[in-house]
């Protein structure tokens, strides 16, 4: 019946996995979302977003995004954050980055503001002397509200996801594909959206992204 496609933490793939070089700029576009059953088949919800990033230091990048699909629904949604490389890659030992993010939303209908802090972490491996890299990691959204609809207690305050992805890096362009296992500890039964997953927990998200560096 209804396809309220609502896992907002799953609107986008990991923004910046590996920090940019100092002074480098990056603009990216991403498409994809949670898999749902729709018209007898399974499709990823086509969330879209734009993201801009800037390398402040060799191991520190700032970024900000605009969720285009949300905007089309009258909701201004952005995530602002930084990515810091905690450990550089050494051979088979992966590089590790952490990205604290502020997700901000505001709608034109009832002027309601929402803030969701989140933190991402990623392990990444460049391979075969190329700039391509493979990564695995996690995304963690936090719900700060204590109550939900009709003054019921909000039970879940941590909404995790685990991602795996690959970035093909060319001199000026990058192409990324990512899969996420979203909210993997919570049942996907008895809700209005027909999320698709490995079993009866969470949902799988599929994303593609393209970016250009300056």
């Amino acid at each position, binding site marked *: *019946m*209804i*396809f*309220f*496609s*609502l*896992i*907002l*933490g799953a609107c986008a793939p990991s923004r910046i996995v590996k920090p940019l070089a100092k002074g480098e700029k990056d603009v990216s576009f991403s498409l994809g979302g949670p898999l749902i059953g729709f018209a007898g088949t399974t499709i990823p919800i086509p969330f879209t977003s734009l993201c801009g990033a800037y390398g402040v230091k060799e191991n520190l990048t700032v970024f900000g995004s605009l969720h285009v699909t*949300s*905007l*089309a*629904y*009258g*909701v*201004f949604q952005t995530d602002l954050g930084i990515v810091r490389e905690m450990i550089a890659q050494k051979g088979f030992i992966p590089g590790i980055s952490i990205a604290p993010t502020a997700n901000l*939303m505001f*709608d*034109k*209908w*009832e002027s*309601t503001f*929402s803030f*969701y802090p989140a933190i991402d972490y990623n392990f990444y491996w460049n391979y075969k002397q190329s700039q391509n890299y493979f990564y695995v990691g996690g995304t963690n*959204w936090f*719900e700060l*509200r204590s*109550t*939900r*609809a*009709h003054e*019921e207690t*909000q039970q*879940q305050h941590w*909404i995790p996801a685990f991602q795996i992805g690959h970035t093909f890096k060319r001199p000026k362009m990058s192409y990324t594909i990512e899969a996420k296992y979203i*909210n993997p500890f*919570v049942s996907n*039964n*008895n*809700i*209005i*959206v027909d999320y698709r997953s490995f079993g009866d927990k969470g949902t799988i998200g599929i994303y593609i992204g393209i970016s250009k560096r300056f």
Partner: protein
Amino acid sequence: MRHSIIFLTLVLLSSCLRLDDNLYNSDNTISEYKFDNYEGEVDFVLDTSYKIPENKFLMFTLTSDDEGDKAEIYAVYLGDTSTISEDTVIMYCHGNKDHMDFYWQRAKLLANVGGNCHYGVMMIDYRGFGLSEGVTTESGLYADVNVSLNWLKNKGLTNDRLVIYGFSLGSAPATEMSAENYSMKPSKLILESPFASAEVMVHDASSLAIPSSYFTNLKIDNAEKIKKVNQPFLWIHGVNDAFLAMETHGEIIYKNYNGEYSEAVRVDGADHGDVPNTMGFVEYMTVIDNFIKK
């Protein structure tokens, strides 16, 4: 500055998309109603012992006026229209799927509660469903049910013999008619697999307590509206409802009811659309009959 203006313009102009219409899963492509001969998907099919005699079936149209937005809607009455002034009538508000053909078996089942056509049953296709004209809206739902109640009233039905029954989406107009002042005030309210509010749908689907206004302008809020209902209330819900969870939707409505009498029937093993057949038709009809006679 130029970029700011472009950005603000984008925000203001690009916000016409809403998910409201997704609530109404209607089919208005049919050219006629088939009722017993309908071969499309239905939740269950009754055997011939539930058949409605031809002289106890009437299909007709009504003109529904939603603050100037007029639509001709289709209605059926199961029972003897000449005895509405004496009979007890169930106003059946169907769910959000397709049209009356999909709900025909359910209406027939209710028309067999207490015996064949013991109670009159009225069912309509809301505007935008089946052959009914117009576009479905929240206020249109209420206007369409209201004009039906007005038709019953003009046939001699009185409030004390009117029972309103809402299934799924139909829980909204059923609760609204029971709580507020319309053409008639039902004496009893029955909700099967009701939904609490758009907000609960959003919260269930996202796991977040996120404002529902981010997705929909729907104001339907049965969980709040039920607080204004004082008439006796019967709530029936499938324990395994995979669409509108019993715990987050039905239980909230039941908990918020503060009226004179309430009864809950939680049906083990039942999903959203199979409560009557999971209960067993005889048991289901007995529960309805006993409640109406209370």
